[in-house]
């Protein structure tokens, strides 16, 4: 290699280069700081005990009485239901990829590629998929099987929104679980196999318990991601206004993130409802950040173990 690292150019150029890249980094940090402070400043005043736990029976555009409790319940219901579907499937896929699959085989490569691809599908396409597959196809078939006179399954519902989100967050759970599985010292598996345990016993009794923190991280990150998504639930279950919180899987629900969308585009009086909008934004942000913080802390522990395992 005949590269010359000329000394004379270095000083000016180095300063310029370091300054420019450093400035980019600062710009990102500044953007984050400005956005968060501004939102907290605009919405902080609205936060109160009543705002968070009230609002079940009030006009949602009334600054004095509005609350986000029904939306919180709806969001909690849809993400909880989602974890029931996505965690088992995600964890089992990660187990297959790390414990069973031949890392260089074509099939493994295709599965990984599919996971990456799933992570990059636009969220609105997941919304369309929810309508086309879950509501029209599965819901429609269930309706014709049960011969119900009016659509019971073939309409937007909590169940379909959760399933759509489960498909969307599958890559999040797989990636996080895989990272945790790789951090388990290989000696542990070998010791178990050497003592006569079968592959399956090793996976169930040794690998899985040790991977629990990682599975937890994956679940939390998936919940945090799903809680903030609006596009996939626009047509699969979220409702503009409902008198009641959902009671069954086929009910629609009000939702925190969807409510932010409603307030910022369909409010009868944008100026007047602005405090409610930013109050809702602050609640949503606190929720996702809190979840992310927990996930980051657990993951930091896993990464430390990963370094000591290899």
């Amino acid at each position: 290699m005949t590269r010359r690292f000329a000394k004379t150019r270095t000083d000016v150029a180095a300063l310029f280069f370091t300054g420019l890249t450093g400035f980019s980094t600062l710009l990102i940090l500044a953007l984050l700081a400005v956005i968060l402070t501004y939102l907290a400043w605009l919405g902080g005043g609205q936060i109160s005990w009543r705002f968070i736990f009230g609002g079940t029976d009030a006009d949602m555009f009334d600054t004095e009485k509005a609350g986000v409790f029904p939306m919180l319940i709806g969001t909690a219901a849809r993400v909880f239901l989602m974890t029931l579907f996505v965690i088992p499937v995600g964890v089992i896929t990660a187990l297959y990829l790390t414990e069973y699959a031949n890392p260089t085989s074509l099939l493994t490569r295709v599965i990984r590629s599919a996971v990456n691809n799933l992570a990059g599908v636009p969220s609105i396409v997941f919304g369309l998929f929810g309508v086309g597959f879950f509501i029209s196809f599965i819901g429609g078939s269930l309706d014709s099987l049960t011969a119900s006179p009016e659509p019971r399954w073939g309409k937007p519902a909590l169940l379909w929104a959760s399933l759509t989100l489960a498909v969307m967050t599958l890559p999040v759970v797989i990636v996080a679980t895989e990272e945790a599985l790789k951090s388990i010292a290989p000696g542990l598996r070998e010791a178990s196999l050497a003592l006569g345990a079968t592959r399956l016993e090793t996976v169930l009794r040794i690998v899985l318990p040790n991977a629990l923190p990682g599975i937890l991280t994956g679940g939390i990150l998936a919940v945090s991601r799903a809680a903030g998504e609006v596009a996939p639930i626009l047509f699969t279950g979220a409702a503009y206004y409902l008198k009641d919180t959902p009671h069954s899987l086929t009910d629609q629900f009000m939702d925190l993130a969807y409510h932010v969308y409603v307030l910022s585009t369909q409010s009868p009086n944008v100026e007047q409802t602005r405090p409610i909008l930013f109050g809702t934004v602050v609640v949503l942000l606190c929720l996702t950040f809190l979840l992310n913080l927990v996930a980051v802390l657990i993951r930091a522990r896993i990464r430390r173990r990963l370094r000591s395992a290899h």
Partner: protein
Amino acid sequence: MIAEKLIFAISLTAIAMVFLIFLFVGREALPIFAGNISSAANQESQPIPVAEMDRLSPEQLRSYLNLTQTEFKEMDRETLQALMEVRVDAAKEDSTDRDALVNTVAWRYLIRPYQWTDYDKPVYVWQPVSKIHKYNIIPLVVGSLKTTLVALLFAVPVSLGAAIYVSQLARPTVKEWIKPAVEMLSAVPSVVLGAFAAIVLASALQSLFGLQYRLNAGLAGLALGISSIPIIFSIAEDALTSVPRSFTQGALALGASRWSAAWQIVVPAAIPGLFAAVVLGFGRCIGETMVVLIASGNAAALSASLLEPTRTITATIAAELGETVVGGHHYRMLFVLGTLLFVVTFLTNVVGDVVMHRLKNRLEGRS
């Protein structure tokens, strides 16, 4: 053994889902791709006379009038009769109207300009809820590309610069602060970024530059850029860190400064990865929905200006699907747009994935 077979079967879910998404989004769009559906305003050769209303079953009547189940249930007999009269009148009028005979979902009307009766030159128009359903997708494609271009012009230099700084020049303590901060930015829901852009940023930019429109393509692009910084940054950072440390150490040993080691050795080695970051950032921007839905102003007019309101493919689906008749041509057109989005993002994902995979193999000396 059964348990292990089960594990294997379940691990194929990801593949199955990608396949099912394509299949079921495409299925709803299929009649348009195959040309089996007509959206001509005047397609009932014989409108049904009002007197024959009772000979139709409720379901036939509903589909004849193009109503949803709930709409149909809420209407009384007189309203339905009135709607049927409208049909009869419209058919009389339409028979003299050249536009009403056009099947607007045929391929040439979707992508090529057409001179409608009221226009003085051929135009590209997306106007699904008018008497003649105009479905030209070009204004939407241009809207998506316009906002994405602005977003990338802003996000790519910033993210790549920051990725180089964080991976090559920053002290480890600085690094430990910046990476969680970027993760925090990626945890901000896009609907929140959209609301922030449409209310705070829009007013600030408008008063700063005296813009005519509060919500415009440039603003949406800027907000879109903010939302795509985390993904571009993290892929670029991943690519740069996967360049072996021995590259840098060798350069430093030869007398290079830290920045020339970074700029002349590490960055060129990681170029495919930086390219992948930009490609995946493009896919993310094209597919992002809520930011552009809230901040772009939502006017589906074709224009090259960045300061006018615009409408993207994603925002169109989000804004219009709720108002369509299931199975109707408007509903199917939105699925055509969805299929288009899926194909485009699928391709960008595959390209990004392959490039990153090859780069890592090469850097680890496995190729």
